[in-house]
């Protein structure tokens, strides 16, 4: 299928620099997700790939062919890309069939060919029975699928999706995730997917690019990026995490704020550190290294969300829901930490959420 090479691309709107020297390659057949909070620049990257924005500097290659850069600019319609917009952008004056057939009619494909391709793609997107309807007669989820069908009908090498699920309700959003992933697997198309929803990214992606303030903070598989975040921001953006200040040395990390309790550590860092612990990675255990007083617990059915006081610090523990019945608020309790992340504490302003800039 298609590779995308982003070569030192920067983009600024007036004074504000929204992308800083992005330099990445998306592999052939890969499902890539650009993840980040709103305003991080992820949509801008997508629109640069599509050709709706021009970068201030840098080059963009699709399949090793220069499409944006220097004096070269291939307009969107010449790039052979499929794209799904956040608002779906389904044309209200055409019925479903015509909407989907549009990219083929532009290419002047024969009528019978068009009919065949459109029917095929409508089949994949479960829209066959709606072919004659107009978009206003269809639900949001169905309109979304029209947009998807239209983006895929011409069998593009590359599919761009700009927060395609953000306007759907929660249940539908979840089922569409799997549908999109299924379709991608079946067709083997390269996908660039933009979202701010981490679970969407985790479900579908081969690789996630976590972007913040116009910089790729980290890229990697969902497992890599969740388990070994490169900095505090990444750790914080994906999943829940609490940070504790500690002192590393002699094979242990001491937490002064927890009355000097400590955990074993065999990593390379020494001196002041930030320790990030995901609440689901602590469990109550009689031979745990840490101890404290169980202050509150919230029973959520599947889990028991607890706060344990150790010295001046509150530690959040997400325990098994079953444990709720055997625990009492105010009791002394011991905790074992299954895994944690250690970052250098450089004392800068962004020390808690260290960001690559």
């Amino acid at each position, binding site marked *: 299928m298609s590779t995308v090479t982003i070569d030192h691309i920067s983009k600024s709107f007036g004074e504000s620099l929204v992308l800083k020297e992005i330099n990445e390659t998306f592999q052939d057949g890969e499902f890539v997700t650009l993840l980040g909070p709103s305003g991080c620049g992820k949509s801008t990257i997508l629109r640069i790939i599509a050709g709706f924005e021009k970068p201030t500097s840098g080059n963009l290659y699709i399949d090793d062919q220069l499409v944006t850069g220097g004096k070269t600019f291939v307009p969107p319609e*010449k790039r052979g890309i499929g794209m799904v*917009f956040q608002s779906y952008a389904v044309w209200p*004056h055409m019925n479903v069939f015509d909407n989907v057939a549009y990219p083929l009619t532009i290419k002047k494909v024969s009528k019978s060919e068009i009919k065949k391709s459109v029917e095929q793609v409508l089949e994949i997107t479960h829209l066959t029975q709606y072919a004659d309807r107009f978009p206003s007669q269809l639900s949001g989820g169905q309109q979304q699928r029209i947009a998807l069908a239209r983006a895929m009908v011409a069998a593009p090498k590359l599919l761009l999706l700009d927060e395609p699920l953000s306007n759907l309700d929660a249940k539908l959003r979840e089922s569409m995730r799997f549908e999109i992933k299924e379709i991608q697997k079946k067709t083997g198309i390269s996908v660039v997917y933009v979202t701010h929803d981490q679970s969407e990214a985790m479900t579908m992606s081969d690789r996630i690019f976590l972007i913040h303030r116009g910089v790729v903070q980290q890229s990697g598989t969902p497992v890599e990026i969740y388990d070994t975040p490169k900095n505090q921001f990444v750790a914080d953006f994906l999943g829940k995490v609490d940070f504790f200040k500690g002192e590393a040395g002699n094979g242990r990390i001491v937490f002064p704020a927890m009355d000097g309790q400590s955990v074993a550590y065999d990593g390379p860092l020494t001196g002041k550190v930030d320790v990030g612990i995901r609440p689901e990675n602590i469990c109550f255990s009689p031979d745990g290294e840490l101890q404290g007083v169980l202050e509150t617990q919230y029973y959520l059915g599947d889990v028991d969300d607890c706060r344990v006081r150790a010295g001046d610090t509150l530690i959040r523990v997400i325990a098994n829901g079953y444990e709720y019945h055997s625990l009492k608020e105010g009791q002394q309790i011991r905790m074992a930490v299954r895994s944690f992340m250690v970052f250098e504490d450089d004392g800068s302003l962004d020390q808690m959420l260290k960001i690559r800039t």
Partner: protein
Amino acid sequence: MDKEKHGQTNQQKDPTALITKIGLAAVFLLGVLLIFLGIRAQRDFASSGFSTENAYQVIYTLSRDVENAWQKSVKPGLNDLSDSEKASLDEIVVGLLKDAAESQSKGAGAEAEADARSADESENYKLLYTTYLVNGPKVPASGRKVITAMSEQEASDFRSKLLHCVLDEALPLPDEAEKLAGSLTGSERQAMLMQIFFVSGGSADAKITENVNNLKKTVRSKESQLTAFRMIAQGNVSWLWQLIISSSRTVILLGIILMFDTVLLALLMSAEKLWVLDIKWILILLIVDFLLYFQLLPLLFILFRAVFPDGTFTMEVLRRLFTYPLNQVALRNTFIAATATMILGTAIAFPLAWLVGRTNLYGKKFFRFLFVVTYMVPPYVGAMAWLRLMNPNVGSINLWLRTLFHLSDAPGPLNVYTIPGMIWVLTTFYYPYAFITISRAMEKMDPSLEEASRISGASPLKTVFTVTLPMMTPSLISGALLVFVSAMSCYGIPSIIGKPGNVNTVTTRIVEYVALGQQGLNDATALSVVLMLVALIILFISDFVLARRQYITVSGKSVSPAIVHLRSWRIPLTVIVSLFAVIMVLIPFITILNTSFKVDVGKNVWAPGNFTLANWTTVFSRAETMGCLKNSLIYASIAATVGLVIACVMSYLLQRTQLKGRKIPSFLITLGSGTPSVVIALGLIMTMRGNFGLNIYGTAYIMIIAYMIKYLMMGMRTVVSAMSQIHVSMEESSQISGASWLTTMRRITGPLILPSIAAGWFLIFIPCFYELSMTTLLYSSTTKTIGFQLYEYWTFTSQPMSCAMAFGILIFVLLLNLLLNRLTKGEFSI
């Protein structure tokens, strides 16, 4: 919020509901009683042999007799006059008119003097009427220029001879009329006769119409007085009964209103299941009553009169639309002009809207302001400017073209006094309507709809044709229809450009016909029916059919349309648009200013001795101008203020309550704004002269009401949209903080919508301030407005002076527009 309120009151429902029901029943019965009394009174009145109805009939028969007598005895005599004698008669009349105008402008100081003058004037008008009969409905322009050949003595002899035969000998009165006439004093008799005369009168001359209107008013008020005195003199009725008799129709009207309101109220209350008299109800009823009586009744009456011209059913009136040549021509001209204006205007507006809204043209904001501002300029000002520019003899453009192409001094090549000329001027004034509609839709269109087409492989041009244009179609059509309706209903432009060139349209004909007695009124009615029906059908299409097909999806997020880069076309296109702006906006405005400093309009302003400030000083120092200006300011302020109160109530009802009937008044208001001005005015003339219980004909009220009906919508739309943008939760959170409804309105809602309220006020005020079409039909000598004064100056007095006045109005309107812009931070500059 209302539900909670309802919940509270429901607890104490029983006693209140009972009281309310009893109260409603009592008011209903009072209404029945009033109707009963009114009908009794009318019967008594009729049996007394002196009802107003009878008086009118007598006068009507009389008028025909007089007409006959006149045709038989006086006219032949006049026909014997030689051409030169006729010409001199013209001259005398013109001279008399001038005298009258001058004595008028000297200031209406002493009442006695005014009285004396009016007696004198009536003679003048009789004379003028005479010349009209001699020369046909038009006093030839030559009549104003020819020098009198008749001596002072001859003239006065001739005049007294005419008067003599009109007033005494030529009038063998029928018995009833003799009796009636006998009971009148000399001046009353004269007034009555004058009325008789002009009921069948034959001229649309503004001066005459004005005087006729005055006379009619005087005679009518005299009649009711006379009736009352007569009844009292008979001595067998109390003063109260007397009062009821003399205003029986008003009493019946009041009764009907009371009955109608209580029934409506009962229906609404039972629908809401809440029997509490709320201030809301009173307000909604007042608005509904107002609209039904002043808007719906006149319109329905016009329809009724078209098929029942004198009480019996006939299609004759409507048939005359196709058989009477004048009607045919007017309809054809209007249709041709409106259609051409629509096509031309839309063809101009679409590319402009696209260039200004969706490309990187230089100076987009400035151009937008410039094109939108035309919307605020009175159309007749533009007409005056183009008339000066394209006058076949001395128009600046013609002079320039002749020099450029070395043409002869023959008139032309361009002639504004033609249908194409009129179409051009209409286009320059109405393309902004399409421009505004189209560019609004363009800005609201989700840009990803076009991007989706690009990414599907379509080029930018292909995208315009397959996506942008089809998506714009509903707005394009509704913009075009708006231009059609506006051009069709326009009076200002055809009255200034069409009439001198003998290009009559439906609106100019209606205004002309109104003064032409029974047949004229019939023709005016028929033309109005056509105008009204076409306008309302178009209103229906664009408001209810097209609006549903609007593809514009207003999403929550702000949409910034994708800008098309024009590249090498950027400069040439900017130049073209600038040229267009210069031709459409700058040149006309400069022409007006330029003309206002001229002594002789035909010469260059810098020609020796041709530059003068006198036009400005004369116009703006005249008491009459100042009076008209004062009238305009007062009427427009009242219309805007009352209109805005209605608008606020309506937007509260529409946006914040679930009342069942709340859409009715808003529908009526939409209907009113869609009805052509001339039709509104004609409807009011036909129904507000006492025949439906209220006689406000010739007063300021009728004008203010007409303005409100036409322009209320402008204010309402503004306030409604402002209110819809304030989420109810803002009011609810104020209530939950402990504020009462009133405090919430004062502290939260009020301040939030205040800019829009101010904007709404100006949006009603501005068009009312310079209004012409309705004023032409509704004014009387004491209620002239600045727009009408300008028109009179243009037609009868001096073009440079009226240009000075026009430029003054223009500056005033532009300043108001800037103020409006400031107030609303640019959101409502139109």
